[in-house]
């Protein structure tokens, strides 16, 4: 981004009068705003998508009044939530109660900064991008537990504890299965990972060997679970816990939690597309690095994301909820060992691939 800014400064004389640092700062703030607005809008539309899909699956229509096909429904919802009374329970711990939504929101949104939306369309192209995402999403956990505790309500505390236990547990298979791709790719940089998947469809990491293939499903399952989406929605099981950790939140603060949840969905959908499904690669060789073509790549990635979002919604409205001990069983006794196997397998794949060379397995076996 700095290169682009430098060019901008060079081309526009009046900018040269402004100190460079200030330009950078303003540009960074603007970029942040842009991502924020963009993600918020997508998140809002995802809510709309969810409601529409749910409607279809239950043989009803869903919201279709506000805007074309109800596309502006989230605006109406937002306005309604903003207009509501902002209640802070009397026995709540006020400071923590107010801080919690901010932390959850920050945890969910900051991670978007390192996602590559297209070649070069990265707000912050870090060389350890994947690690950044994994660590930033763990911040959300703290916000959840703060919210649960500060509400001073047993539903909130129980929901928060369940949720935190679940999120922390599923972070392990999530991270480890992503590691399988990292080992195959040899980098943590998300742009590089996508670039390696360009070309034919079998270059996508999900199709590069059995371990990455399994890892993809582990990743998807673990992502669902750490997003508290059905069938892993025990922390918010409305029949048991009212609404989980945000039971006591209303109005704007509730909207923030709500938005953060859908932002998390988008985050993981994009991440899964980038890691396993080739990112902006359409599945056949085409150069998407040019200035205009980047936005085509963006569209392709966006389509993949939408598809994954649709799958998440589909799963939610199709499957019944897990029992709480089964959730932990699945995590620690199924997904975690399986993901470790994937990582070891991927490492072996890399090692063997390196030692086998061009001739492949048969040539290697015969000592060439």
């Amino acid at each position, binding site marked *: 981004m700095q290169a682009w800014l430098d060019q901008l400064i060079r081309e526009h004389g009046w900018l040269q*009068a*402004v*100190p*460079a*640092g*200030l330009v950078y*700062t303003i540009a960074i703030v603007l970029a942040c705003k842009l991502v924020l607005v963009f993600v918020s809008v997508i998140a809002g539309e995802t809510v709309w998508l969810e409601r529409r899909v749910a409607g279809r699956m239950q043989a009803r229509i869903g919201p279709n009044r506000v805007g074309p096909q109800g596309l502006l429904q989230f605006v109406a919802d937002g306005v309604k939530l903003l207009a509501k009374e902002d209640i802070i329970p009397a026995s709540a*711990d006020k*400071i*923590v109660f107010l*801080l919690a939504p901010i932390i959850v929101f920050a945890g969910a949104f900051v991670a978007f900064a390192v996602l590559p939306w297209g070649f070069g369309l990265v707000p912050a192209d*870090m*060389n*350890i991008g994947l*690690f*950044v995402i*994994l*660590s*930033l999403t*763990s*911040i959300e*956990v*703290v916000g959840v*537990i*703060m919210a649960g*505790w500060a509400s*001073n309500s047993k539903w909130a*505390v129980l929901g928060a*504890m369940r949720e*935190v236990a679940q999120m*922390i547990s599923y*972070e392990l298979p999530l991270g480890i299965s992503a590691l399988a791709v990292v080992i195959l790719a040899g980098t*943590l940089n998300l742009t590089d990972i996508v670039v390696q998947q360009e070309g034919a469809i079998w270059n996508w990491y999900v199709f590069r060997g059995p371990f990455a293939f399994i890892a993809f499903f582990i990743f998807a399952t673990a992502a669902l679970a750490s997003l508290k989406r059905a069938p892993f929605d025990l922390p918010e099981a409305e029949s048991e816990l009212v609404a989980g950790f945000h039971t006591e939140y209303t109005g704007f603060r509730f909207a923030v939690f709500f938005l953060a949840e859908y932002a998390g969905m988008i985050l993981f959908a994009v991440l899964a597309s980038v890691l396993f499904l080739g990112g902006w690669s359409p599945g056949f060789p085409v150069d998407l690095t040019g200035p205009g073509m980047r936005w085509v790549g963006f569209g392709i990635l966006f389509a993949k994301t939408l598809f994954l979002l649709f799958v998440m919604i589909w799963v939610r409205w199709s499957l019944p909820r897990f029992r709480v001990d089964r959730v932990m069983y699945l995590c620690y006794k199924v997904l975690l060992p399986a993901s470790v196997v994937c990582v070891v397998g991927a490492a072996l794949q890399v090692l063997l691939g390196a030692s086998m060379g061009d001739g492949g397995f048969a040539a290697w076996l015969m000592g060439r």
Partner: protein
Amino acid sequence: MKLPDLTPYIAPAVFYGLAAFAVISAIAAATAPKIVHAAFGLMAAFFGVAGLYFMLGADFVGLAQVIVYVGGILVLLVFGILMTGKTRSTLGLEEKPKLLIPAFVGGLFFFGLLLALHGTDFAARAVPPDPQPTTAPIGRAFLDPEQYLLPFELSSMLLLAALVGAAYLARRRRT
């Protein structure tokens, strides 16, 4: 009109901001009347320190700090607080620390450390080189038998032992 160039001031400003944030949070952790507040103060301090790591060019350590300390240890501590409290009133959540002697000792200690720092010449570089990516060198250092492979494996054994030990200790007793 040319505005003064503020670029050289950004880094110090960020440093002082982060340092103040970390230290104030730490002091809050030390003095907060509620233990949960202390824990959240600790979290803020963690973030401050993580920011300082980034300033030091140690991005990997900084992120590890966030994922392990904030995502792991801190949550564990808060869990500990919640599980060792029975009801709100007797939670032990409300505890006014007796600060007089500890503050005196702590202040004296800080003063002593400052004196020690002041009198020591560390032979440090005034301006370090540009930060390089650290993830790969750290990984190589960990897995190099000549460097830290043995401690690395030992620490994995330690973690395993701690995991098993903690699970064993914390299991529910049938009484």
